[in-house]
């Protein structure tokens, strides 16, 4: 509707300008052209930024990968900067495991909260939960890190001591391990998951629910068998956004991940792709610094893949929405 209107305005304005052009002074015409040029430039800035970021990430990341060897860099299992051993397999795996863990914990909780907000909550309760979610989204990531190191680490350490009490081979991490990092990440992706899931649940047409309850389904049955399946592509895009947020997060998990490049294990001190870069950037130089940019490039490739997946989901959403309208 609004698009049609905008197009109508476009044609109207085109006709109007062509009709009046003769009466208008050359100055105004020049001004119009200049402004149009400026706005077009502004529009292209985003494109230029993405191109520049891509080019610069490749320029600064590729040399290290070339020198170390792409196989050794990606699949080498030792990261030891002092001896110039730059294998980032443990970092890649940690990032993947950490993200998966955060999704496994965060998505169910987030989805249930979204269901509560869009389907079940009475207004007064909604007025409490909704601002809480908004606040959760607004809290800076360093604060998550600080709280994680003060609140989650001790709990996980106690758990670790309990589990590994009779295991002399286990290296105690003091709670700074993959498990703590997963918990922090799970909390951090909650607002993303909740907001997007809630929006897509609310967008499900009420007729669907009415048909379901009309057939005798209970409210909960309707939610889980009709509403959630109907909103699944929206929820999927929320999950993908959550993945992107979790894999790119650095500051929140700096203080809780432990920072040694071990293979991922729930109670191992680990290094993520992101924390590796932040922890070592300041004192790195030469090949080490280049290798960190190599890590950045790998992370960038991950993010671009996630972006394309997200774009695909959003496009198919639009298509189904259009075909439903027809």
């Amino acid at each position, binding site marked *: 509707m609004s698009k049609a209107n905008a197009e109508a305005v476009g044609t109207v304005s085109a006709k109007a300008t062509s009709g009046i052009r003769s009466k208008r002074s050359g100055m105004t015409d020049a001004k119009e052209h200049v402004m149009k040029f400026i706005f077009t*430039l502004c529009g292209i800035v985003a494109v230029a930024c993405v191109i520049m970021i891509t080019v610069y990430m490749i320029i600064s990341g590729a040399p290290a990968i070339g020198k170390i060897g792409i196989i050794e860099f990606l699949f080498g299992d030792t990261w030891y900067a002092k001896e110039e051993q730059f294998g980032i397999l443990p970092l890649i795996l940690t990032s993947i495991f950490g993200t998966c863990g955060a999704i496994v914990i965060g998505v169910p909780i987030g989805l249930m909260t979204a269901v509560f907000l869009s389907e*079940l909550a009475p207004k007064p309760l909604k007025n409490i939960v909704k601002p809480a979610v908004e606040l959760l989204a607004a*809290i800076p990531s*360093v604060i998550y890190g*600080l709280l994680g190191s003060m609140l989650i680490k001790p709990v996980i350490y106690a758990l670790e001591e309990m589990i590994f009490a009779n295991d002399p081979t286990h290296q105690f991490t003091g709670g700074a391990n993959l498990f703590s990092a997963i918990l922090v990440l799970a909390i951090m992706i909650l607002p993303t998951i909740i907001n997007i899931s809630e929006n897509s649940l609310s967008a499900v047409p009420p007729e669907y629910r009415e048909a379901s309850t009309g057939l005798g389904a209970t409210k*909960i*049955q309707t939610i889980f068998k009709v509403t959630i399946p109907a909103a699944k592509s929206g929820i999927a895009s929320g999950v993908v956004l959550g993945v992107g947020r979790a894999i790119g997060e650095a500051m929140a998990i700096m203080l809780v991940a432990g920072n040694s490049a071990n293979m991922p294990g729930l109670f191992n001190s680990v290094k993520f792709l992101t924390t590796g870069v932040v922890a070592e950037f300041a004192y790195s130089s030469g090949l080490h610094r280049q290798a960190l940019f190599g890590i950045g490039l790998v992370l960038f490739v991950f993010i671009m893949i996630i*972006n394309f997946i997200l774009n695909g989901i959003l496009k198919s959403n639009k298509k189904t929405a259009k075909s439903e309208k027809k």
Partner: protein
Amino acid sequence: MAANVKENSLCKKHRRPSDIILQIVIYICSALVVALTLGMIIFIVIRGCEGMSWNFLSTPAFSYPYENYGVLGNIINTLYLVVITMLVATPIGVGAAIYLTEYAKQGRLTQIIEFTTETLSGIPSIIYGLFGSVFFYNIFKVNYSILTGALTLSIMVLPTIVRTTQEAIKTVPAGYREGSIGLGAPKWHMIRTVVLPSCIDGILTSVILSIGRIVGESAALIFTAGIASEINISSIGDIFSKVMTQGGSLTVQLYQYAQRGGAELKYAFSTALVLLITVLIINIAAKLVAHSVRKKRG
């Protein structure tokens, strides 16, 4: 027979146990989210008050000639970052939104611009940090500077401004434009006098949201704006030359306090409290603006 029918009828509502369990799960999850948020805030407020004092707020952090804990320097740095970033990003973002809604024809270029804007919002801040540190080093030849940080952040908040402004421009009724065009106004004149004034609060919302993002940002700043906490302003010229010097934001200072741990931990919490209050104020401001927009539109 009759009794049997009544037992199975809908009159006696059958409660499914799985429904009750699921409902309880849903309530627990929502309660958990609220409890997490409240718990975090209360914890920060309680621990943050320990190190809070007028001295903490009114002096910068320095270690010579004696150890002093303060955040004034970082508050000033954060203000610099906010102002410069918004000065750069707002015109470009609003301009891009105007191009997309008023000038661009639906086509390849629009699609590419929208896709890249989407991409920009998906790139994690640490990548911005790495990019900014190399790209702007090539231009300014300074390792760390507030300007480098601010320009990096400008790219980061661009998608927020473009998208929010675009939404605001789309809500301007077509009749306004038609009226203006019908009176013979050229396009730019129409945009300047009709479109922009009626979506000014949408732009304001986007600016407030972006400020929130800047204040909370840390990973992109460590590599670009650095970690210094001195004020270093003694003359009017310094106000401008400070832009080219290192300057750590509040978040960066908080991270440093937290990393050192021990006695400085309480100052980490005090910094967190300052940050939290700032973020709260920004959030409320964004809400108020959005609310007034809704009221105006009825």
